[in-house]
């Protein structure tokens, strides 16, 4: 009784199917691919999914299929967990945090796939819950080990308005590995072909034409109308509704009941459940199902029954009397409660609510809320708590507790407005929590909503409310100090933190103590009393060490590392602290998120001090913790910064694509760093227009108070214009004017910045001034000399070396101070070599050759006639990046990964990654084979 065999002919989709197969097979740089099929109901999306799934399975893919539910309150990750359960894999997820959950699910997916590539098919994606959408982005960004292809269908109707998928698809369709296919209705000829295929060649042309007009080319409707033609039924009705209703009416009563029952159920409806819902004897029921299947209303599969098309359910829903519907839902709910498969709270609550039995629905709604929270599906949990509130009246005693949950879950899923209004309602209850508790919670919600002024007032109110316990007071003061710090009111923050620390030492929890210490430490550092601040935070680390609690340790180490690498600019020590903190947590086997964040700080610090190979190794380590969400974005951006520096264009593009995939789900604050990297990468490739566009877009999205971000961006923009000028291409006067305005804005605002921030901004101002002189054809060595000094003082070798290069170039162009210029160029060269900054090195070499400066013994002083290997793409090695060729050359010499790493200043692990890519690209499996390809080509 498998439904697939009863599918009608597939018309007009052959080319599309081939296209989809090849899109899915061609994984993008991240090893993933996706096709989203959109189209109206009945246009044949599900059919296309089935056909593709079958073909891909034959092509050696492992296939998992799931369907999203339209009951509004599906449980988190429903379609994926359902698909896993069906394939006999766990599908019961228990995890330590939201990131861990994604990791566990992807491990299950990995287990299903084994060595094969995995195709995940998701139908009705418009009903997917937020957690499922996040999982999808996580998988497509290549953050799991699963080599996954995703094929999903979305109803076009749902994408109108403000559906969250709209934005996601708009962002994803820009990626090379994602295709959004809009499935159009059939045209006239195709419809006639379909009609003939179903009803035979004897169909009159005008009849076929009428089918086209009535169906509008919708294959589902056209096929049904064609069947009528074949069976000699005269169809007078014009609307979809009438077409199907007349057909339902022809069913015998028992089959009629079965169709109505399945339409009311949550698909798939298991036979055992159906048997309890439809009061028929076993034999009669089976007969009735058989008839419903024969009349093409119902499809039967291993896991239960479904309507052949949800369109039918929608038509039927409008026809059933409310009392009938309620009775059906009640029977479903009772049947599910009697069932022995363990309670499915989401389904139960759906049926009880539809049955109009709020009191009976409440327990399952609450249970569903709790299990959603266990899966970190806070959005879903919030929806359940909200429906629980709708099911209770003001008199109900449990309402107070429900309100508290609803407020907290709203806060956790970012619905701050809702959280605040729930809290207001909670405050009105007779048995409401105490005033201090309410003020504290309101303050937290307000701060999260960005309403800092009101949040501050609420903390003050909490502190002054009479029922405030000593512990609460310590906590409120610590939070308030943290808030003031974020607002940049360092003196106030300092005073408040002092107070909080005193209270917390006597009565507070370790968490409050750590929070207060951090606020005190940072405010002291920003007030130019760094030693005092450092001492306090070191003390906080000691306290956390004594408590041994992973969260407290994580927070304390994070604060110390951030203070050192940030305002204090003691990067080496900060890196050390961050790595030690990560090791400490690893030894406890806990605090995975903190380990990731600590390693991210270490990697950023290492990048700044020019230890790029070490940064690479640390990032490798951090990525192995399988980060997700914002943490993953941060790490990918840091890694991409390295690829841009190393000149590994492919890897940089891969990580930028992964970042864009994750940002499709939200995350505006990471857009600017992404644009900056895009501009930096485009510049090394001499694509000035691309670099310019990225910077100009960034300028429209920067807040005027983000001075450091503006600094980096403006420098990139001016550099792009200068590079264009140097390459003999026109400078964009509009872009230049806007960049100057940004620099002026920066210069005007720098006085208000805290001292440590000021030093960084000044460095960028120097770079901008010098770069502007280059773009305007003046190229003044003195301006570059200033930039050299500024970055030497900040002890950041990369911008310092870059400034040295330009200083030397400017001097050489003016034919002045050649000896000093030569020294500067050689210093810059040494730095570039030590960091492994390939494109930067090339730039130095080309400047040196232009002016016939000898950089080192092994660098020719004039350009060699041989073309640079990266430009030569005719041979087999053409698809390798510059870096990969270097690695391959070393492999061919017979060096081990460790030896290669030492030679190229990269970690052993990175060498392994490069070797993997080389094998993939050359389609070889061993080092010997790879060496042979290299030696033949060379």
């Amino acid at each position, binding site marked *: 009784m498998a439904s697939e065999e009863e599918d009608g002919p597939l018309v007009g989709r052959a080319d599309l199917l081939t296209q989809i197969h090849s899109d899915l097979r061609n994984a993008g740089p991240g090893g993933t691919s996706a096709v989203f099929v959109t189209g109206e109901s009945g246009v044949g999306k599900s059919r296309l999914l089935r056909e593709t799934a079958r073909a891909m399975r034959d092509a050696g893919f492992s296939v998992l299929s799931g369907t999203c539910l339209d009951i509004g309150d599906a449980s988190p990750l429903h379609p994926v967990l359902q698909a896993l359960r069906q394939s006999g894999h766990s599908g019961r997820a228990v995890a330590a945090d939201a990131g861990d959950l994604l990791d566990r699910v992807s491990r299950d997916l990995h287990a299903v796939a084994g060595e094969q590539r995995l195709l995940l098919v998701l139908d009705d994606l*418009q009903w997917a819950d937020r957690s499922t959408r996040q999982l999808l982005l996580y998988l497509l960004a290549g953050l799991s080990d699963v080599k996954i292809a995703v094929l999903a269908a979305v109803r076009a109707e749902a994408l*109108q*308005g*403000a559906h969250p998928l709209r934005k996601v698809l*708009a962002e994803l369709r820009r990626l090379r590995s994602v295709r959004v296919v809009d499935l159009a209705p059939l045209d006239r000829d195709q419809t006639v072909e379909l009609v003939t295929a179903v009803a035979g060649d004897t169909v009159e042309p005008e009849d076929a034409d009428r089918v086209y007009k009535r169906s509008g080319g919708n294959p589902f409707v056209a096929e049904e109308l064609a069947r009528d033609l074949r069976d000699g039924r005269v169809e007078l009705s014009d609307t979809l509704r009438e077409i199907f209703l007349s057909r339902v009416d022809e069913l015998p009563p028992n089959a009629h009941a079965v169709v109505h029952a399945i339409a009311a159920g949550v698909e798939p409806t298991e036979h055992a459940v159906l048997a309890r819902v439809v009061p028929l004897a076993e034999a009669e029921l089976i007969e009735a199902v058989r008839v419903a299947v024969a009349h093409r209303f119902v499809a039967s599969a291993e896991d239960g029954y479904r309507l052949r098309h949800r369109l039918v359910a929608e038509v039927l829903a409008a026809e059933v009397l409310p009392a009938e519907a309620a009775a059906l839902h009640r029977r479903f709910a009772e049947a599910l409660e009697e069932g022995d498969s363990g309670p499915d709270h989401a389904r139960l609550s759906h049926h009880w609510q539809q049955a109009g039995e709020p009191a009976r629905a409440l327990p399952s709604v609450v249970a569903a809320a709790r299990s959603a929270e266990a899966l970190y599906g806070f959005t879903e949990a919030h929806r359940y708590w909200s429906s629980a509130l709708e099911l209770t009246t003001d008199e109900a005693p449990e309402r107070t507790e429900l309100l508290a949950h609803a407020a907290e879950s709203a806060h956790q899923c970012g619905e701050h407005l809702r959280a605040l209004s729930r809290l207001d309602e909670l405050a009105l209850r007779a048995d409401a929590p105490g005033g201090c508790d309410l003020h504290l919670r309101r303050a937290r919600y307000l701060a999260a*909503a960005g309403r800092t002024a009101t949040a501050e007032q609420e903390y003050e109110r909490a502190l002054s409310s009479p029922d405030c316990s000593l512990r609460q007071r310590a906590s409120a003061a610590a939070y308030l100090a943290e808030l003031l710090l974020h607002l940049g009111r360092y003196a106030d923050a300092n005073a408040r933190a002092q107070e909080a620390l005193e209270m917390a030492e006597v009565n507070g929890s370790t968490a409050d103590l750590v929070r207060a210490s951090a606020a005190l430490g940072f405010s002291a550092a920003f007030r130019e009393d760094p030693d005092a601040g450092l001492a306090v935070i070191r003390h906080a680390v000691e306290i956390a060490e004594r408590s041994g609690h992973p969260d407290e340790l994580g927070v304390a180490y994070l604060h110390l590392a951030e203070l050192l690498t940030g305002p204090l600019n003691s990067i080496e020590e900060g890196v050390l602290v961050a790595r030690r903190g990560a090791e400490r947590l690893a030894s406890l086997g806990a605090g995975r998120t903190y380990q990731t964040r600590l390693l991210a700080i270490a990697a950023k610090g290492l990048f700044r001090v020019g230890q790029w190979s070490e940064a690479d190794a640390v990032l490798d380590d951090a990525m192995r913790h399988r980060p997700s969400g914002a943490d993953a974005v941060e790490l990918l951006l840091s890694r991409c910064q390295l690829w841009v520096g190393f000149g590994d264009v492919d890897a940089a593009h891969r990580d930028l694509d992964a970042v864009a995939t994750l940002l499709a789900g*939200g995350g*505006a604050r990471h857009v600017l760093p992404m644009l900056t990297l895009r501009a930096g990468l485009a510049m090394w490739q001499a694509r000035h227009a691309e670099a310019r566009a990225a910077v100009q877009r960034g300028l*429209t999205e920067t807040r005027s108070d983000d001075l450091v971000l503006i600094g980096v961006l403006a420098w990139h923009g001016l550099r792009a214009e200068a590079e264009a000028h140097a390459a003999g291409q026109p400078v964009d006067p509009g872009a230049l004017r806007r960049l100057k305005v940004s620099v002026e804005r920066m210069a005007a605002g720098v006085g208000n910045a805290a001292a440590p921030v000021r030093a960084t901004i000044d460095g960028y101002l120097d770079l901008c001034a010098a770069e502007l002189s280059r773009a305007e054809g003046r190229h003044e060595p003195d301006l570059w000399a200033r930039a050299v000094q500024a970055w030497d003082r900040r002890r950041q070798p990369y911008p310092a070396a870059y400034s040295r290069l330009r200083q030397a170039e400017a001097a050489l162009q003016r034919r002045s101070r050649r000896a000093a210029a030569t020294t500067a160029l050689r210093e810059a060269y040494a730095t570039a070599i030590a960091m492994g900054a390939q494109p930067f090195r090339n730039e130095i070499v080309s400047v040196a050759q232009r002016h016939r400066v000898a950089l080192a013994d092994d660098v020719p002083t004039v350009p060699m006639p041989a073309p640079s290997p990266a430009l030569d793409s005719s041979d087999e090695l053409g698809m390798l990046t510059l870096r990969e060729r270097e690695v391959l050359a070393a492999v061919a010499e017979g060096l081990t990964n460790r030896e290669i790493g030492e030679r190229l200043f990269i970690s052993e692990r990175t060498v392994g990654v490069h070797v993997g890519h080389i094998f993939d690209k050359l389609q070889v499996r061993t080092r010997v084979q790879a060496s042979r390809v290299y030696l033949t080509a060379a």
Partner: protein
Amino acid sequence: MTQSVWGPAQQEMADLLGNHPDDVPGVVEQLRELQAILTRVPPLLGENPLCDFNKLYLTITEGVLERLYAGKFKDPAFLSRLDVEFAARYFDALRAWAGAGSSPRCPQVWTALFTRIPGPDCRPLPSACAGVNAHINFDLPFALVTTFDHLGRDPIDDSDQHHDYLEINEIFAESIPGLRRGYLEKWQLLIDMMNGCLDDWWQGEAIEYTRNVAWRNAQKLWGVRHDMAATDRERTSLDNTAAGVNKLLLSPLGAFLQ
């Protein structure tokens, strides 16, 4: 389905709408190219009502871009996203337009304007207003919801985002009087000199009023955005209301506006 609603500009239109701009400069560029194409749609060419709206919209979006570059907004990331989301809905409506009676996915409110592209001719000002009505009363609330959802923030009164959103009223106020003067014919000049200020004020008020309504509607939609059935109902009702206004604007009665 393959019927050509854009005449000789059909292919160019399809190619242009194949782009999905993702930043404000990109939106301005797309509107500018669209303007060039629209003036070639027969039989009214540059006189067609969509041209009138597109021209106004281009002017306004250029104003937004200038202010973004000048750092006039409190939350530029929000405003950039909003501008892109807002424009995307206009481009979507154009993409869905395949002629009267065969564009099930084109909102009613846009259909009312698009059906008038081949004529009969209507006055430029009511045409531009009909476009503004469709865009603000129907598209804007959804664009707001998508933007807030994406940024992970709520639509809160008196927030930075609300401030920026209201700032756009200024741009409308600046754009409309200038645009009007461009349309004046000689005999209207007299009337305009007599009550021009009053008229401009009325225009400005109308947009400010509808734009605040859009903010309120967005807040309402925000509350039900996870409930797809409720969102659908809201969408249909907004579409119907706005479409009603458009039919009025484009009727002979609308000519009184001019």
